[in-house]
């Protein structure tokens, strides 16, 4: 019944037909070639896995099908039954999905470009606002009246905060638009570089930073420096009054993946914020407590994801935090 509907033949027309009559030119040859091989050979290859083909109706129109072959032991020897399924709808869905994926990729790239261009162009007029309010403040402070001093101070503060936001936004969007190709990189050297960049904060806080041997990974070196720098920088920054103790290690995590961890003895984070801290411009503290725009971990997340990995945190308030991220090992390490 089903076959009559699918192929447009009546039952008596269909029985005894050669298979190549219902399959378009070319595909029939492929099936014939398969048939010439030993039954076992053909079966072992194709049983259980559907073969996708084009089928031809009586009126010569074509449609996609999937054929499933199954062996059947019988008195006359090995028989093979074939189940044919019309997969037009599935094929259409696949094409649609591919189209959607392409569209998504394009709109993502556009969005990245947009963020970059917008923040770059916003910087120009803002530079004027910030510079001239700073000049006003410098030249006229105490020469107008107390209100004027207040107003100018708020304008200066607002403009310079906006400049930091825009610079952070630019840094964030550069990860996608200005990233380099991933190359074999010594994460140990990169880590040392990050510590060098942080030396001021390390000295001021008296932080004790230790690490295990760190592996070679596939990475964009500059971005990996930034990743370590942000994570270790945070570990130093979000501290009680004690001396920051930070330990960095890496462990094999199945296949050629490495799981890095940056463990600190800092303030710790309540579990309800574990996701939120990785979102752009999300902050857990008042500006007076800890400076910053809330971009650091969003940048970390974007860097790790660009490298095909994941980043997460485990922590308890008052017990310190451990940030973990995965990276692919360098090929020579596999």
């Amino acid at each position: 019944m089903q076959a009559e509907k699918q192929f447009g033949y009546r039952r008596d027309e269909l029985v005894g037909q050669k298979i190549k009559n219902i399959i378009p030119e070319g595909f029939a040859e492929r099936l014939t070639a398969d048939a010439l091989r030993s039954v076992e050979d053909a079966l072992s290859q194709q049983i259980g896995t559907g073969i996708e083909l084009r089928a031809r109706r009586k009126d010569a129109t074509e449609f996609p099908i999937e054929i499933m072959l199954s062996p059947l032991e019988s008195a006359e020897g090995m028989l093979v039954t074939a189940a044919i399924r019309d997969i037009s709808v599935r094929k259409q869905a696949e094409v649609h999905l591919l189209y959607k994926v392409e569209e998504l990729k394009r709109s993502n790239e556009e969005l990245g470009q947009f963020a970059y261009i917008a923040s770059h162009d916003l910087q120009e007029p803002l530079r004027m606002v910030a510079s001239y309010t700073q000049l006003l403040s410098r030249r006229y402070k105490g020469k107008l009246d107390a209100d004027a001093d207040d107003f100018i101070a708020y304008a200066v503060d607002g403009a310079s905060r906006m400049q930091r936001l825009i610079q952070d936004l630019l840094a964030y969007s550069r990860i996608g638009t200005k990233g380099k190709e991933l190359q074999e990189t010594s994460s140990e050297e990169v880590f040392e570089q990050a510590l060098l960049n942080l030396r001021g904060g390390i000295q001021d806080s008296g932080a004790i930073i230790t690490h295990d041997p760190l592996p070679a990974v596939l990475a964009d070196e500059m971005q990996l420096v930034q990743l370590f720098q942000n994570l270790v920088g945070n570990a130093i920054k979000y501290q009680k009054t004690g001396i920051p103790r930070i330990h960095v290690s890496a462990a094999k995590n199945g296949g050629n993946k490495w799981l890095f961890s940056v463990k600190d003895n800092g303030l710790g984070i309540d579990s309800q914020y574990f996701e939120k801290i990785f979102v752009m411009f999300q902050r857990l503290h008042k500006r007076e407590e800890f400076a910053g725009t809330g971009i650091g971990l969003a940048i970390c997340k974007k860097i790790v994801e660009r490298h095909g990995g994941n980043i997460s945190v485990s922590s308890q308030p008052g017990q310190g935090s451990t940030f973990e991220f995965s990276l692919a090992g360098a090929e020579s390490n596999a």
Partner: protein
Amino acid sequence: MPIEVLLVEDSPGDVRLTREAFKDANKTIHLHVAVDGVEAMAFLRREGAHSHAPRPDLILLDLNLPKMDGREVLTLIKQDDDLKTIPTVILTTSEAEADIVKSYQLQANCYLNKPVQLDAFEALVKSINDFWLTKVKLPQQRQSG
């Protein structure tokens, strides 16, 4: 002898900011302004209203300008036997690698980014004064175009 500087810059805000910064850095500098590439070339070639223009000791050139942009101005300066010995410094907000490479290929004497912060901008203008207008030795002879 006063020091003559030609600033090629279309934004009035930037012009004033540069003027203020040079005032702080060195009172003997005469800052001349051209608001686009065409006016800059007229100034350098002493054409039209600029027939009495002095030969600048330094050119500060923005890249993105109306009418004729900084790259074209730079090309014309460095193709001109008389003008090409004038140090030409690119002063722009563009951080694009392509702009940096192109500028040096066109023989820019150096490439500087306008800093976002006022303090940093003033410090940059001071260092331009200390280096290009103080320490650098330039050909003595001031040719007339």
